[in-house]
């Protein structure tokens, strides 16, 4: 089965139909998606600003990272599950959206960026925790993260405005 055929099949499952056709389905899931955004994106930006050395400078970077992480994970789970439901409500259409694909690609890059940072610069965090200037590796990771998340929000907004025709 091709991906397109799979998306068609998914679109015909009863739950997908009910999300699509219910009056409240989309508004409620979208609201949860946006509330999750406050928690996840807000904390991500604050952490990135700390890694850039411009916010919460008096607190060790590892401390900011450690304290915010569980909330960011929670916020991300909310965003991901509500996002999956939004996609599942009209999979054939969203799969065909170029901005959806751009968003997926940038999400993957953002994940990769975290992975590289955590296994690289962050392993030596004790050495630069309280230093005035954060190391270049941390700054690059933070700048990449901010850029990607701006792009992800922009692509996400664009999905709704440039949907492929039925």
């Amino acid at each position, binding site marked *: 089965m091709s991906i397109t055929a799979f998306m068609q099949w998914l679109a015909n499952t009863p739950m997908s139909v009910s999300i699509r056709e219910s009056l409240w389905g989309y508004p409620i899931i979208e609201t949860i998606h*946006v509330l999750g955004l*406050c928690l996840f*994106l807000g904390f991500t930006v604050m952490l990135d600003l700390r890694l850039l050395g411009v*916010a*919460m400078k008096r*607190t060790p970077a590892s*401390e900011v990272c450690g*304290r915010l992480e569980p909330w960011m994970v929670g916020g991300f789970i909310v965003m991901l599950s509500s996002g999956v439901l939004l996609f599942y409500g009209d999979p054939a259409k969203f799969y065909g959206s170029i901005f959806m694909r751009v968003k997926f690609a940038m999400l993957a890059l953002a994940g990769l960026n975290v992975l590289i940072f955590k296994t690289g610069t962050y392993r030596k965090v004790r050495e630069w925790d309280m230093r005035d200037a954060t190391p270049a590796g941390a700054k690059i990771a933070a700048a990449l993260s901010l850029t990607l998340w701006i792009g992800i929000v922009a692509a996400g*907004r664009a999905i709704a405005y440039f949907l492929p025709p039925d």
Partner: protein
Amino acid sequence: MMPLVQWFGHSAVAQAIHNSSWLFPFIEIFHLLALGLLGGTIILVDLRFFGLGMKSKPLPELARDVQPWLLTSLAVMLTSGFLLFISEAAKMYTNEALRFKMLFLALALIFMFTIRSRFTNAQPTPASPVSGWAVALISMALWTCVGLGGRAIGFV
């Protein structure tokens, strides 16, 4: 207030956004990004009232640290929100959800800059945390109403 709204609605800026196919979503992106940061900084401080999140930092210090980011994102939200509003002024003026949102926005801002800021500036932190919990709950409830109202604008 109608004449003033009409005047803004007929301004060149409002007309440019109204007649453009991409300016409205473009401004919405700024509105959403600022929402993330504004919501994040508010939640961070509200969580601290419960001893959650950045718990090793004293509340006044945390509130002071996030204040510039809170104010910046608030400024971006108000500016982008105002631009979105005037581009659809005639339609938006009578939108019930927008009125609901503006009412709760006013309440949330008044609460934040009066009662909540008195609590976040309190040194030393009061012995009983209960009043702080109430402040955090009211703060989050008011902002949630602003968000719900905002989300509803496009659906009513």
